[in-house]
């Protein structure tokens, strides 16, 4: 869509350029003559487009994350009626039979089904060293896993070098002799988030400055947790999760049952069949089965909402910028009425005048807009926290990266061109309508 619009805009500009007879030098030199107002006008474009690019990068980042999380060959099973993991409650007795279904793949090494029983919990973490103003706690999304090795295979998640999955016990003794610490594997986003709690000494001693790393600890209430590994999870919602031993943390936070069963099928088609079977024909217990990829992709409502808001705000800001360029162009024309008269006397047609002034406004717009795209692109890769929600309720807190890509640039340049044409049109029309004799008088 955007690409088509941009293509149309570029073609329009191309046609304008092809029809142009007044030398471009004339246009460009006049811009340098009035450089102060031109800079002011272009800077307004820079700001509008720059802000647009940053905001789009945000939505784009959220979209990439929700669309890039989960696999198409995994089936996510939740309790019937539950649309979100945090509201789901599965009966443990029902799971073994589902895991044994023939569509579920088996681990070639152990022969066990590639199925992961999980308890998804949102935990309140009182903020250590929180300033008295502002929030006193944060939400940590925690996933209790039974067997991390199987779970890693089902999810297709790997650890960054140097890390390891938690042990069978899920806890380890700490050198300070206190109670054993809960072993946890962190997503990159939450590792970064938790690093903001470090004391200055810890920060100075940290191996990895921007996030927690293996061996570091954090506290939830009075329990100490120790990081055994960091998941390669950037760009997925798992990046905002903490994984630990289910049998340990379920009871700890008052949720001993499972919320989620994740089943790996041979391929996407089998997964689809498995999902349909569990949803429609599975007699033993009613469940809500979904393709994992779709489950996360559905969490796009927040991005859609923000996309609308951004569109709205940008269009209005753009209108402001358009008024600016109109002022500039009207002033340019009134200053060059004699030039226009001479050109018309020399045989330049009305359309030549129109095109020339439209191009002038487009040049101002493009200089400002491209600078805006470039400045806005500095936001690429910046991490931000946000929330994603689905159409049917539920959602996740995520740490995501702003993503500036060709699509974002396309939107930015398209808007630039549209603003340039709209801002230049009325003045250019007024220039076109000038009668040569009156212009020279």
């Amino acid at each position, binding site marked *: 869509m955007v690409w088509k619009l941009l293509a149309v805009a570029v073609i329009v500009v191309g046609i304008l350029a092809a029809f142009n*007879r*007044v*030398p471009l*030098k*004339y246009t460009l*030199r*006049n811009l340098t*003559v009035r450089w102060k107002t031109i800079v002011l006008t272009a800077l307004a474009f820079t700001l509008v487009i720059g802000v647009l690019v940053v905001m789009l990068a945000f939505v784009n980042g959220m979209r990439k994350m929700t669309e890039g999380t989960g696999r198409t060959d995994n089936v996510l099973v939740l309790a019937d009626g539950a649309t979100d993991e945090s509201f789901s409650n599965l009966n443990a007795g029902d799971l073994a039979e589902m895991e044994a279904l023939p569509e579920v793949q088996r681990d070639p090494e152990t022969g066990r089904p590639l199925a992961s029983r999980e308890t998804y919990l949102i935990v309140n973490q009182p903020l250590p060293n929180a300033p008295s103003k502002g929030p006193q706690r944060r939400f940590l999304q925690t996933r209790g896993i039974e067997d991390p090795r199987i779970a890693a295979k089902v999810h297709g998640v790997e650890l960054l070098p140097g890390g390891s999955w938690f042990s069978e016990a899920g806890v380890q003794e700490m050198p300070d002799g206190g109670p054993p610490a809960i072993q946890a594997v962190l997503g990159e986003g939450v590792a970064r988030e938790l690093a903001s709690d470090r004391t200055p000494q810890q920060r100075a001693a940290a191996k990895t400055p921007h996030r927690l790393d293996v061996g570091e600890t954090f506290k939830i209430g009075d329990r100490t947790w120790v990081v055994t590994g960091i998941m390669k999870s950037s760009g997925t919602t798992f990046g905002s999760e903490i994984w630990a031993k289910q049998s340990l943390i379920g009871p700890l936070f008052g949720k001993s049952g499972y919320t989620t069963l994740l089943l790996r099928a041979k391929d996407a088609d089998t997964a689809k069949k498995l999902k349909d079977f569990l949803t429609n024909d599975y007699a033993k217990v009613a469940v809500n089965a979904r393709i994992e990829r779709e489950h996360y992709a559905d969490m796009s409502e927040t991005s859609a909402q923000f996309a609308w808001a951004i569109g709205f705000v940008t269009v209005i800001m753009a209108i402001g910028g358009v008024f600016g360029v109109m002022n500039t162009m009207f002033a340019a024309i009134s200053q060059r009425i*004699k*030039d226009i*008269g*001479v*050109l*018309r*006397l*020399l*045989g*330049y*047609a*009305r359309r*030549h005048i129109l095109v020339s002034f439209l191009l002038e406004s487009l040049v101002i717009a493009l200089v400002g807009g491209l600078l805006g795209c470039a400045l806005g692109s500095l936001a690429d890769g910046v991490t931000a926290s946000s929330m994603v929600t689905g159409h049917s309720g539920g959602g996740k807190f995520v740490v995501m990266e702003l993503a500036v890509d060709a699509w974002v640039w396309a939107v930015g340049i398209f808007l630039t061109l549209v603003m340039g044409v709209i801002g230049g049109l009325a003045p250019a029309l007024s220039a076109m309508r000038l009668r*040569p*004799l009156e212009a*020279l008088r």
Partner: protein
Amino acid sequence: MAETNGAIVRVRGVHKYFRRGSERLDVLQDLTLEVPEGEYLGLMGPSGSGKTTLLNLIAGLDRPSEGEVWVGGQLISAMSEAQLARWRTRNIGFIFQFYHLLPVLSAYENVELPLLLLGLSRSERRRQVMTALELVGLADRIHHRPGQLSGGQQQRVGIARAIVTDPTLIVADEPTGDLDARSAEEILNLLDELRRSLHKTILLVTHDPRAAERADRVLHLHKGQLVEQAQ
């Protein structure tokens, strides 16, 4: 065809009037005029006599209320505005009192302007521009902008721009009106030169008797009518 005996401009029974409210303002009344090819014609008359209006009609900048204007065998009084614009590029060279050069363009670029509408190659344009500038004696100032040139030099750039398309007719509206005596003299000499060596037809509107006396023929306009012919 009406065009005969070598007249390049034929004005026949032209009326031009403007309306101001209910009042009709007659600027030209039943005016008939022929200009043979190669003639240097001076038009004189007091302000408001209609001489500039007549010039504008002949140069295709305006259309008569009644009557016909033929230039170079074409009935320009019947052309649309767009046709006129195209026609002017090839057929008319303008010289103005205040030069009207585009300030941001160099002498060369100003002279080149009319050629850009003609679809010539860059080298052809360059040849024609340089010829015109050499003719007016400014081949060494091609990169100067109008602001860096004297009034006389600017007017010479104006003349180069007027002749660069090799037009049928050169119209000059008070070309010396803004110049000191010496520069004016130079410009008038240049016009003589154009007529002599290029056999251009020139239509000169002026107040200045010294300018008028260079012309082959001088017509006086008074209240929209030709009153007197002098040789």
